[in-house]
């Protein structure tokens, strides 16, 4: 197990380094950064001055090293629009996003897992088809559409819930529901597929043969085995928690990182965009890392082969 953790940690760090380098290259390659920062009619002399001030006239390798060192120290540049360190600007929005994301994740799990299991257990019956239809609907309907429809119904027609804002718990209901149902749909589908495969395995018959009840077999035998692919999907959802909700946050005027990203791109605030990109990348890597470790915990065969994730 320790070997597994070590191997995965090294891979995670390497991936983050690659992301950091990639962001550096992209921002340099996608055109002159100074031109994107300043209005089009700026005289060349001013452009040169800015270049010098931002260190853009130095050799690339030197720029890269400065950049890496700065990031290591937490300096992600200064936000053009707010004239504050970008890292602060982003950091302020993180709690709101986490709040939304974790609530949506919880909803997705609470809905998706049992429904997927139910569909698997009653496979090819009307229950199965109904659940799967709902799941497909849930994860095909775009967030903005669902969000707006919900606002129309619940905020405008029936006046039950507020349409936007961040202050009370009622404000959370609609956005969480919008985000959560889509994720629930995906989780339900994967849960069903995984469970159906596991339920067809011989050891399930052995467990039943011992005289265990079907509920016991599903919870104690089938679920732990079905968990592995499901954990993968949850990992992807987790990775998309930060910054992945930008449509929903925009529709509901939720002050999170996603909404910040939309605004920053519109305002060409490079430092903030760069920070958020790195934040999202790191979150994804982190989520994958947790998933890899979870595999090791769940499946002793992966522990044994301890790096490849392919059971022996």
């Amino acid at each position, binding site marked *: 197990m320790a*070997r597994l953790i070590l*191997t995965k940690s090294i891979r995670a760090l390497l991936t983050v380094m690659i992301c950091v380098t990639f962001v550096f290259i992209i921002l340099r390659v996608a055109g002159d950064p100074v031109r994107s920062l300043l209005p089009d009619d700026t005289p060349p002399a001013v452009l040169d001055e800015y270049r010098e001030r931002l260190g853009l006239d130095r050799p690339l390798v030197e720029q890269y090293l400065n950049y890496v060192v700065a990031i290591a120290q937490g300096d992600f540049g200064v936000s053009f629009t707010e004239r504050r360190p970008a890292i602060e600007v982003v950091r302020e929005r993180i709690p709101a996003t986490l709040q939304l994301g974790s609530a949506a994740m919880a909803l997705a799990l609470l809905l998706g897992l049992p429904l997927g299991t139910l569909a698997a257990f009653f496979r090819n019956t009307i229950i199965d088809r109904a659940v799967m239809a709902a799941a497909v609907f849930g994860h095909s309907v775009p967030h903005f559409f669902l969000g707006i429809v919900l606002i129309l119904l619940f905020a405008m027609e029936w006046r039950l819930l507020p349409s936007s804002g961040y202050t009370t718990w009622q404000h959370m209901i609609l956005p969480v529901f919008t985000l959560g149902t889509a994720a629930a749909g995906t989780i339900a589908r994967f849960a069903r597929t995984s469970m159906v495969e596991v339920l067809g395995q011989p050891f399930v018959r052995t467990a039943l043969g011992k005289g265990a009840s079907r509920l016991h077999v599903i919870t104690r035998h089938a679920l732990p085995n079905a968990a592995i692919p499901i954990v993968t999907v949850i990992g992807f959802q987790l990775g998309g928690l930060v910054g992945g909700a930008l449509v929903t946050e925009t529709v509901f005027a939720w002050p999170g990182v996603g909404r910040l990203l939309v605004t920053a791109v519109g305002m060409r605030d490079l430092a903030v965009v760069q920070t958020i990109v790195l934040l999202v990348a790191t979150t994804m890597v982190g989520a994958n890392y947790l998933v890899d470790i979870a595999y090791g915990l769940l499946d002793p065969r992966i522990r044994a*082969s301890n790096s490849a994730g392919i059971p022996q």
Partner: protein
Amino acid sequence: MNTQPAIPTLLVAEHVTRHFVTQRGLFWNARRVVRAVDDVSLEIHAGETYGLVGESGSGKSTLGRLVARIVSPNGGRLHLNGRDIAESGDRHDYARRVQMVFQDTLGALNPRLNIGRQLMEVLDIHAIGEHASRQGRATDILRAVGLGEDAARRYPHEISGGQRQRVVIARALLLEPSLIVCDEPVSALDVSVQAQVIELLRELQQRQNVAYLFISHDLRVVRQVSHRIGVMYLGEIVEQAPRSALFAAPRHPYTRALIDAVPSSQPGRRRAPLALRGEPPSPVEPPSGCRFHTRCAFALPVCRNEAPPQRLVGPEHLVACHLADTLDLAA
């Protein structure tokens, strides 16, 4: 069956070794190497069936693949008709002389092509004869294996297991090879169909003088088809003999145990207790000296320390056992 004078030797394997690396190490973890085939030597004569028998981990499938040139040896050499196969043309040419028939017939056939097309494909790849005559050849070969013309239009999943096995054999025969390696060709078939396929193989051997390397874990089937038999254990051949000698007077304790382990065909007669202990060891860390010593009822200290050499104990009868001269293993 009957001994024939001076049959030419078709295939010779000389001290052939093949190993596989199972785990690449990261820092402190050593590589684990499986010695699937370790210093194996044997000869197959033209037109005869050499039965290769062993349990899982014995290396018999790997040896089959070495002979069919699907994998190459890490050590030793294989000669076909006197020439080293590694140096005589590429695999494409070799396929004209040595073919392989597998156990999993569904996997061995392309599910998207009908039988006729798959046979034609072989002829096309090797440019056999004129294009116009290939259709006829395919039909002929199907008839030779007992399938009607209409089989050519069917798809692999539409025919039975026994019929598929015939198709795979037909495909192997198309190139008129002198040797066919059969890896568990009848193990997946029902008993009533097994006999049909074995009969077919026998007939084809007589008609076309093709030799077989017949690999199986089932000694009963091997007994029916083989002229000479080799017994493998953990990568080594422990005994080789003509069929009657092997069954009448086995000289290696493992051969004796294998024969005793096969269920008898007569009710009421309890099997003799096996002179065999414990579990088969892992092929990654084979025991020292004679690899069988950990399970052998007759093992002596020398068996643990030294690997026994192959010794001739009768006409064409070789054994690798320190105690070959002293043990009496007749039933």
